[in-house]
């Protein structure tokens, strides 16, 4: 199931990994497709692939138009016939609009379709709630055979895309929209299904996934350290299969767990963590995420996260409470 992937350090790390994660995905996809003619890029009018991909490998590209449900079925058919389709859309249109095609045609048949989505969480910002996807992970992680990956930056995006080569079933890879902070300043170990320890700590554990949540977790770690609290930070980039061992160890070795994600508080990574902790090593868990209800506020991604209570302040408060 898992596959270790590493990168050799490029000349200038920061420069190489500047820009939105989705641009890096597109670059890596083209590289992989050049080496594996089974790979086919299935577009639903995302904009950009007609320049970044189609002219280079026209025989490995198809645009099905603005028709996501149709695209999922086509992806399943292609995979059934031996291809490795990377189907591309906005997260809400994959998880919500096309849910049944994903469930029955792709997940149910355990086909190696790579569903790569952008605009995950609140990253669509001012586009508004029709384009937000704060329930996508909850929906997709319940579907059979699914691997669900939420990379935290461009480096992880590259490694995650490459690592899909080792997955025999379907993959849901959730990216954002705009450029986000670079978390990793050098080579890292990345394996699907293995939590990435980012900071050590023995008082409390912060489990995060996605760009800003991981960034906020690192900020909270620094602030807690100044207050004498050692906060372990785990980057849970793979929500399914979730790393049970790392979570059980965190529950054993620290006083409690705070999760943070750009997703609803219910059903997402935090929900998955609770399922594991309840069964393996009961400990208090606090979940930070988006509250119930259609978020009717205009703002950019960070402003919306802050408004939803996904912030370093809230992390520090929750983690401190668990240490009392």
């Amino acid at each position, binding site marked *: 199931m898992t596959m270790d992937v590493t990168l050799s350090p490029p000349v200038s790390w920061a420069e190489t990994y500047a820009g939105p994660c989705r641009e890096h995905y597109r670059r890596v996809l083209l590289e992989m497709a050049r080496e594996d003619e089974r790979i086919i890029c299935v577009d639903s009018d995302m904009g950009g692939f*007609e320049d970044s991909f189609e002219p280079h490998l026209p025989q490995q590209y198809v645009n099905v138009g*603005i028709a996501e449900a149709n695209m999922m079925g086509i992806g399943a058919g292609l995979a059934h016939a031996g291809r490795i389709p990377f189907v591309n859309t906005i997260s809400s249109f994959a998880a919500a609009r096309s849910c049944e095609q994903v469930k029955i045609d792709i997940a149910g048949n355990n086909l190696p379709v790579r569903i790569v989505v952008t605009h995950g969480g609140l990253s669509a910002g001012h586009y508004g709630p*029709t384009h937000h996807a704060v329930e996508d992970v909850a929906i997709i992680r319940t579907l059979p055979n699914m691997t669900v990956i939420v990379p935290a930056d461009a480096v992880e995006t590259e490694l995650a895309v490459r690592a899909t080569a080792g997955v025999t079933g379907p993959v849901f890879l959730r990216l954002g929209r705009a450029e986000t902070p670079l978390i990793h300043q050098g080579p890292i170990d990345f394996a699907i299904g293995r939590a990435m320890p980012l900071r050590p700590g023995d008082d409390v554990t912060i489990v995060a996934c996605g760009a800003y949540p991981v960034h906020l977790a690192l900020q909270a770690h620094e602030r807690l350290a100044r207050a004498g609290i050692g906060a372990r930070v785990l980057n849970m980039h793979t929500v399914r299969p979730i790393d049970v061992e790392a979570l059980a160890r965190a529950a054993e070795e620290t006083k409690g767990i705070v999760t943070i994600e750009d997703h609803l508080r219910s059903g997402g990574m935090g929900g998955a963590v609770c399922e594991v902790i309840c069964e393996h090593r009961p400990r208090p868990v606090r979940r930070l995420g988006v509250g119930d209800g259609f978020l009717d506020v*205009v703002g950019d991604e960070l402003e919306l996260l802050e408004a939803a209570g996904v912030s370093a302040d809230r992390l520090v408060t929750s983690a401190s409470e668990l240490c009392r």
Partner: protein
Amino acid sequence: MDFDAQDVTKRAFAVRQRILEMGAAATGTHVGGSLSAADVLTVLYTSVLRVRPDEPDWPDRDYFVLSKGHASAALYAVLAERGFIDPEECASYGSYGSRLAGHPLRRLPGVEFPTGSLGHGLSLGVGVALAMRRAGRPNRVFVLLGDGELQEGSVWEAVMAGPHLGLDNLTAIVDRNGWQISGTTEECMSLEPLAEKWRAFGWDTSEVDGHNLAVLHQIFSTVPHTPGRPTAVIARTTKGRGVPLFENRKKSHYVTLTPALHQRALAGLRNRSQK
């Protein structure tokens, strides 16, 4: 409603100015598809729709659904023109705390449904039109769709339902500007012969110049054209219409106007309107 060609022309110009203003916001906006829809929306809101800006939920109102929700800037501009919102509010587009999102929010007066996920609007329109028909009410329903949007399969489920249910109080308008984000519709997933498709599904279908204000007024204000059948109007439009810089250009789909580009666009708009 009365139609004063000179007045509506002036208002369409003001609407385009406001669209460019929103394109100059930090977030940018869907400029091309807003400009292509500007004349249809201006005619609807100034001389067709029976609505009350001071009473947005007036029970006898005509309903409008912007299925191509990404043309929100054009909608905000006409809502300002008609008095639903203060024109000054357009300056808040996309910023924190604003009511003007990239895709319309329900809480904005005059917006019936939040739209922006394509392929939803015509079904919503069928539902409202059916409710009005069953209640014996006179309200009319107008839905504006994008042409690329017609690639969503759900649209055709609604296209099938409209005539089946005999909804002659329903009008679907297609902003046929010929473009979607990756290229022309005919390159991406061809739609033609489009009018024949709507006719085959049972709609009273017309193809008109989507920038001829008088023609648009004539066709919208006389629906239904065939009793018992819904009306489809395929408005042949130009993406980016009115601003030479953006006309028929793929890149005009989404633009963030710098101050310099904003000035150039406004100058182009003024030049064009004087011709």
